[in-house]
């Protein structure tokens, strides 16, 4: 730290900048969030609990968690594998693949949804042939596939830089001691990636839980069947049941807050070798 310069014996810049920062965040982030909490509790906590305990709402939250979980498992595993391949081996077209993996970040989620429909829908390019045997669209599987698509680059994006900067000396040492490639990966490489994997997983999970645009297109939005929490919020708002929509929104907001708190505070613990 450089020495702080004092203006007339008192540093005015520090409190001012903190206030300015909070002042900017207030109308943009803090107040909108506060208003869902204020509204949610305005008609009493029993109302809030009732809205939360509605079977449709419980199901929607469950479905969101489960579909996000499987999308996360897949994307972390794939991200790890792809990062390993792309940082270990240089081959023609590897850069193109890195770019393609990152593509879903820039694709509007609604486009992701109808792209999946155009492929797997009952009249889709592949769907028209597979439809007699199994249905992918308008089931919970469709939600997982959509979640995988929209969160595809997140885990990879966190894991790959760590791979790139990892020194190979440890791996080489382990190899000279007679470890197999697999043992080296499991005992040497993986522990070094611990922080990146957990961060990537939590980011992917948080993003998938809040996913709306692609889900509404591929799921069919059937209450207690294929309706995730964000779809439930949207449906309830459309029906004019703002309290019900709001209760679930509060749960999702708290959930996201919890995830990012874990990320922030667990970072130090995870980075420890």
């Amino acid at each position, binding site marked *: 730290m450089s020495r702080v310069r004092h203006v007339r014996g008192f540093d005015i810049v520090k409190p001012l900048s903190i206030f300015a920062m909070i002042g900017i965040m207030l109308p943009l982030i803090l107040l909108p969030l506060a208003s869902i909490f204020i509204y949610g509790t305005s008609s009493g906590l029993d109302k809030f609990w009732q809205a939360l305990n509605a079977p449709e709402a419980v199901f929607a939250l*469950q*479905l969101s968690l489960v579909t996000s979980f499987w999308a996360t498992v897949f994307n972390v595993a794939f991200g790890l594998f792809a990062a390993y391949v792309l940082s270990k081996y240089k081959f023609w077209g590897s850069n193109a693949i890195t770019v393609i993996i990152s593509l879903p970040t820039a694709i509007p989620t609604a486009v992701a949804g109808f792209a999946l429909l155009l492929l797997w829908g009952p*009249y889709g390019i592949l769907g028209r042939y597979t439809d007699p045997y199994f249905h992918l669209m308008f089931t919970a599987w469709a939600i997982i596939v959509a979640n995988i698509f929209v969160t595809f680059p997140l885990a990879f994006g966190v894991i790959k830089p760590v791979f790139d900067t990892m020194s190979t000396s440890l791996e080489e040492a382990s190899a000279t001691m007679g470890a197999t490639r697999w043992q080296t990966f499991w005992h040497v490489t*993986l522990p070094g990636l611990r922080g990146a994997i957990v961060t990537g997983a939590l980011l992917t999970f948080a993003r998938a839980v809040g996913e709306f645009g692609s889900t509404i297109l591929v799921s069919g939005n*059937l209450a207690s*069947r294929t309706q995730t929490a964000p779809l439930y919020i949207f*449906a309830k708002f*459309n029906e*004019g049941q*703002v309290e019900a929509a709001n209760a679930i929104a509060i749960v999702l907001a708290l959930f996201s807050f919890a995830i990012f708190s874990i990320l922030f505070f667990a970072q130090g613990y995870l980075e420890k070798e």
Partner: protein
Amino acid sequence: MYIRVAFVILVSVLLSACLPSSPSSKGKRTITVYGFSIMKEPLEKEIYPMFKEKWLREHGEEIDFVSSFAGSETVTNQILQGSPAEIAILSIERDVDRLIKAGHVPNDWYVTPQKGIANKTPFVILVRKGNPKQITDFPDLAKDGVRIIHPDPVSSGGAQWSILSIYGSELIKNEMAGTKDDAKAIGTLRSIWKNVISTPASAREARTQFETGFGDALITYELEGLAMRAAGAPIEIVVPKSTIFSEHPVCIVDRNVTAEERPAIEAFRNFLWSEQAQRAFVKYHFRSTTDEKLNDANPEFSKIEMPFTVQRFGGWEKAYPEVIEGIFRDQIQAKK
């Protein structure tokens, strides 16, 4: 090692390693209904339970209803994309025609004398309490400074009814005054459309926006106004001198129905015209199509001086291309 620990934690948070199945629908017969936005309450609160009870009594079998509600056009598009709807309850007959064209619904889709129309309701204008903008009929909506919420004709059937209602109402009044003046009616529609500040995707979404204090007026189904009034919303219902009755068709989406499922689904469709179901519709402020006397049970219904239906334009097959596309889309929206 730690990675495994992290995973175990994540797994235990979720406590589930398989897809959740709807707790209520295991091993039961289900009927999947896709309906347009305002149909939700009467179906879920009255008609589903009644039919479940009836089917259990007659066949000893439990039935579960799964439903999805959105704007009529949205629902139709979802079905065309392959949504698993078995019954479609739509706002406009044109949407049934679209399903017929795509081969989802057979040509002879209705069996009742009501031609597949389950219920109807007139179109009215909702304004704020005390009617501060002094709206008495459609032309008042064209006044400066009136902010209108109007659902989007692209996704909402109700929005299309509303456009037909304004246009037809003006035509009829012009005729009464002895001038058959289409251009004048189009002009009124155009100046009303200039005042539209928001086009939500469905009639219900439009109502939600209006309820949150947005806009001065909303053109919608009468039952939406009556339901809001019953809930104590600070609004007033303005009944135009002449307005349209919207008529809502119900069809079975044959493509998604197997022979084994058919009897229950047909029974449910036919049930919608039973006196029991029609009374339930009336209770929820829809008007019955089977018997006008049933409508006397609801004292809230307003009297319409000069009602008309889509038949005035020669049915939807004419009204859609001529009014919605030819006049609204090509002459009004394009120039907005």
